[in-house]
């Protein structure tokens, strides 16, 4: 297992665990980012943060701070 933010652009993985506190991660789960969801890291923004990922056929952008707490395998 490793953080989502360590993927290189174009690399795919599956979400294993989300270490963001339960009371903060509600919207992330509702957007379909759940344990077991396949994700692809698309790119980092020009200044290195945030990061763009692809999941369930759409593109989503998250800060690295959060991407660090999403474990994938």
């Amino acid at each position, binding site marked *: 297992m490793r953080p989502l933010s360590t993927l290189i652009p174009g690399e795919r993985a599956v979400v294993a665990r989300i270490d*963001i506190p*339960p*009371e*903060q991660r*509600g*919207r*992330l*789960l*509702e*957007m*379909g980012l*759940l*344990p077991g969801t396949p994700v692809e890291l698309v*790119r980092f*923004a*020009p*200044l*290195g*943060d*945030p990061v*763009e990922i692809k999941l*369930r*056929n*759409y*593109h*989503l*952008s*998250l*800060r690295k*701070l*959060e991407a660090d707490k999403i474990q994938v395998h």
Partner: protein
Amino acid sequence: MKPFTVVLTGNPNCGKTTLFNALTGLRGRVGNYAGVTVERKEGSLTGADARFPVTILDLPGTYALSPQSPDEQIARDILFQRVADVPAPDLVVVVVDASNLQRNLYFATQVIELGHPTLLTLNMVDVARDRGHDIDTDALSKALGVPVIPMVASQGEGLEPLRQSIRSQASSPGTRHVIPREFNELPEAFGREAQAIETALERHFPHRSRLAAAEALLLLSDERALPTDKTNTDGNTNGNTANTRYPEALIEQVLSARRRLEAAGVDWRSTAIEARYARLFAIEQHVTRETPPPDELLSDRIDRVVTHRVWGPLIFVTVMALMFQSIFWLAKYPMDGIEAAVDALAQWVGSSMPPGDLNDLITRGAIAGVGSVVIFLPQICLLFLFIGLLEDTGYMSRAAFLMDRLMSRVGLHGKSFIPMLSSFACAIPGIMATRTIETRQDRLATILVAPLMSCSARLPVYTVLIAACIPQHNGWPGLTLLMMYLLGIAGALGMAWIFKKTLLRGEPPMLILELPPYKRPMLGAVLRQMWDRSKLFLKRAGTVILGINILLWFLATYPRSSELQHQFDQRHAQWKQAASNPPTPAETETLKRLDQEEAGEKLRQSFAGRLGRAIEPALKPLGFDWKIGIGIVTSFAAREVFVSTLSVVYNVGGDSENTASLAEVMKSERRDDGRKTYTPLTGLTLMVFYVFAMQCVSTVAVVRRETNSWKWPLFQTVYMTSLAWILAFLTYQVGTRLGF
């Protein structure tokens, strides 16, 4: 008869607005929901049977029924029949983006479960097909238990079947039937608790009994669905839910249910979400036939350039520069036209009415007052046009993506960037553009600092001060102007950082930003939206500005001294006696100077003049005299009034084309002790003051509306004025010490 109410809802970027425009023929009305500043879009279905009128209400885009922004909260409250002035929906049309099926169905199935008569429109089936997802609409309809209409709203495909369906339901409301469905396979313990809460809800709110099942599920799994101290203290976040007070016993029941679930090892927050997505995954597998997608989508190809390490920022800067250049330069022509028209109108009214106070009130109070707002309309329209285009194409979220890193340094969101940028033109549209920011703290912080960006109304003030005080060589004028703009930016970022560290401290905001596929903008809809928003601005700001201008007119006109009047009447009579007929140019010039002297003397005698003197002690440490004081007092409503007031104070005449001559007069102005009044240091100090001081009643009025309280606009005015004074003081004192 009461019209049949259709509620249009769906995720952001699902094409809902396009559909709304198509159904209402671009004739929707835009307003606000009572007490909150969420856009309320409503219209009549075109081509509806006159006997069965249909009203369509377009709800703000929503990802889920557990709201994260005021927009989403209104959408949820309407679907839950909690908004007093919105009737219960007779039909809910959920718009679903076919190319993004699972996440769109997450919200759609939540809505279906509410038990309203529901219809699903599967939009953008063409895009989905191009990407290799072929959806069987009949199978989807069977799986969801509601009619499904495939559609390409942007090309009008599928519109007729939808219209027909709405029409037939409107004309025979008895025949609709509702199949309540639940798209969760919940663990047993969870289901049992939800059932018990449902029963309690039915007992407490019998008029909303069909919603009870869905509401029970939300109460149990969304921790913000229950009112807590935090959500109830601010009118802005919970303005419309007064009739949702849950009885204590029910709240306790929900809390204890959550505790029991926790004890049993069930995560009450995520269980329902995971169960729903599991079900949706199965449904998608069942109804979609996947074909291999094309190599790379056009939207992804565009993104490779637009968010590229080098090209991305370059394109961004170019887009922004073009936007601002056109806001300044394109708007110049209509602004000049409006100014001329307002002047002509004032002149016409002034000459066709008998002279007197009423004449003066109408021409200088009302017409000039409204004119001072209308003059900004071209800039505001252009800004809204650009923002609309950026939003509609999908570039706006890329801008937020690119700028997020920079904005996060001061604790803000990428989404705060556009409002702050917009404030260079005018803080009002900038503040209105903060509606897209979800977190309340971030939105407030952005609103509080937006007016520090140097808006276009400061430009005339800077211009005249630079002309009067700053050496006109070696590029000093341009450099000074640039410094003022940079000072405003630094001030805004610095204050945002301070606010986020102190007053508006909260959890660091999470950025959850969808990057939707690019699309071609619908120009008609963008123009329409531009006009709607501009109209809203005119109505809101215009009425306040009118009132304040009449007040300021009063302050600048009264009290009248009959002695002074007599004195000037005599001098006028003298002039008339001495003048030849027709008067020579020299004599006309004398008369003009006499008129200017009269206006100046009267202003100095007025309440405004006295106020200027009264605040002189506060201005002395800044190096300002009471004449500048008058300018500051009268420009409290709008900064640019400073220039016209100084013209009157220095007997130059109030015309706008007199900036150059005003600067000449200011240059020769002396203090009592014989030193020049307008040294470079005075000019700089005064400009610093104007960079930070609020001095704009329209902004105060808009902040009042947007925050739904007087607390924030008052706080903002106080902090900005204090900051302006302190920094002006420092500038002057340090400058004096350094020997300037």
